[in-house]
């Protein structure tokens, strides 16, 4: 990046380090940090939406819908999340391809599963083999994100269901007394009031989501872990910047990154909860009024 970096072999000390840390590959490494943050910001609302649907489903009066909601949350809770991260992208990919295969090639006679192969017709491939490289990459990321949304949706559903139950019963009874239907009462009374009760659980979920992001590495996505291993590995003299095995330092940097992210989120949530408890008839609300 700097002009004096033209011949790295002649440099030493801090100048060497400044050149080393600004190579093209290092910029890709820094980008992956941004990628992690963006990914979380995109996934969190999706997971929240999935969780909201799950929470509503587990309160439904229609039995099959309720079973679906309850089954979803309890199965995800009982199984290690990493198993879902490995299972979901593959399952989703095959499921989508199979559906497209049924739709696009109805007169295909051969079985889709042949031994250890999964064969669909060329038009049903996802993404199409003719599509550019970036489509393939983003498709992988999207599959990974859906796995996150699925797992964290289940936890969010549990938290939100708890929050819905925490809204005082009298509120709902008053709504009924005013002649609101069940649907109206849910949307106008229950949903606006439940967020205060949901906040501790949701903030905790956010912290867990942060800590789950390095698992993306397992899906073959070039994330922070990938680059830390790539850049930290021993570089021989054939490279511009030879160095011994520095992976320990790179992982230490990742550790610090995640600690900072956690700390910042904790402070943010503390502020938000102070803000939300303003005017509430709780201990926190009274303390807020005093200051």
């Amino acid at each position, binding site marked *: 990046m700097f002009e004096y970096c033209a011949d790295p072999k002649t440099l030493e000390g801090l100048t060497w380090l400044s050149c080393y840390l600004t190579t093209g590959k290092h910029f890709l490494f820094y980008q992956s940090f941004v990628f992690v943050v963006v990914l979380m910001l995109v996934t969190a609302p999706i997971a929240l939406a999935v969780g909201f649907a799950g929470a509503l489903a587990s309160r439904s009066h229609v039995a099959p819908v309720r079973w679906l909601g309850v089954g979803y949350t309890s199965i995800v809770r009982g199984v290690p999340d990493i198993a879902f991260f490995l299972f979901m992208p593959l399952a989703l990919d095959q499921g989508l391809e199979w559906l497209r295969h049924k739709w696009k090639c109805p007169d295909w006679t051969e079985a889709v599963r042949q031994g*250890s192969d999964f064969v669909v017709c060329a038009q049903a491939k996802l993404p199409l083999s003719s599509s550019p490289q970036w489509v393939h990459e983003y498709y992988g990321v999207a599959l990974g994100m859906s796995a996150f949304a699925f797992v964290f949706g289940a936890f969010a559903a*549990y938290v939100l269901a708890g929050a819905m139950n925490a809204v005082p019963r009298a509120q709902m009874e008053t709504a009924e007394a005013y002649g609101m239907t069940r649907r109206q009462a849910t949307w106008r009374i229950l949903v606006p009031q439940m967020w205060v009760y949901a906040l501790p659980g949701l903030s905790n979920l956010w912290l*867990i989501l942060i800590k789950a992001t390095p698992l993306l590495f397992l899906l073959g996505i070039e994330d922070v872990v990938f680059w830390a291993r790539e850049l930290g590995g021993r570089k021989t003299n054939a490279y511009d910047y030879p160095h011994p*095995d520095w992976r320990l330092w790179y992982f230490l940097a990742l550790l610090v990154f*995640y600690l900072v992210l956690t700390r910042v989120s904790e402070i943010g949530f503390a502020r938000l909860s102070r803000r939300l408890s303003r005017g509430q008839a709780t201990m926190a609300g009274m303390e807020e009024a005093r200051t």
Partner: protein
Amino acid sequence: MSCMQTIADYGLRSIGIGERLLPKTDFTLCQQFTLIGSGLIWNIYFAIFALLLGFGLSVGLALARNAASPWLRKPAEWFIFVFRGSPLFIQFFLFYEAFTLLPKNGIELNLGFTVLTAETRWLTRAGAGALIVLFLNTSAYAGEIFYGALRSVPKGDLEAADAYGFSGWSKFRRITFPTMLRLGWPAYTNESIFLTHATTLVFFSSFPAWQQKGDALYYANYFADKTFNPFVPYPILAFYFILLSLGIIFAYGRVYRHLNRHLPQATRPRLRVRPQMVR
């Protein structure tokens, strides 16, 4: 090949007993059940030892965090913050790299009169290295739980203990510790379940599955890769883990009953696992 034969061949494959080569083609349901179940031995091993060792350290951490002296409090706070605030996955990588940097032929400790050689090679094996990471990790999480429980021990209980002439160790042993344990137990049950789930990460971080001796998820992933069909091995894994989780809830429920045995039958709280606070 009958299913009994498969179980005999592969039932203990994950710890290196039985057939050396994993099945390569024509996977049967029985093989998948047997191998994934065999891998579960590792998960149970990690979970039991990390929890047993971690229990002691976590109580110590909780007490240190509650101590008046900053020399005790600050290190405990930092330990808990570092291990709870960062991903376990990164911790595995970090510790593995640190262990591999230790000199291969051991560290020579010069004690003046004799020289001891500390073997370091075993630390890079999953069985010991990953166990250390899991132990430190669960200690931090459980330490936070027990700290919270310690802070909510009712004042009346402690005053009553003082009135009866309890002090120091006997007060802690008889009053504070049991009450703390009772209050923290549901959350600790939850933590134990999630730690058990976290053991599946071991062979997907840096720790190598030496001679294909891996845990349940390692074998499930092996089958999914070979058959390209995730719909059989992963549900089998899920089945095993749900059983394991139920087993943990049952065992911890028995302990919880024991902890609450002084209360009248009707008012005994039932252990309800609330994953509100998922780790």
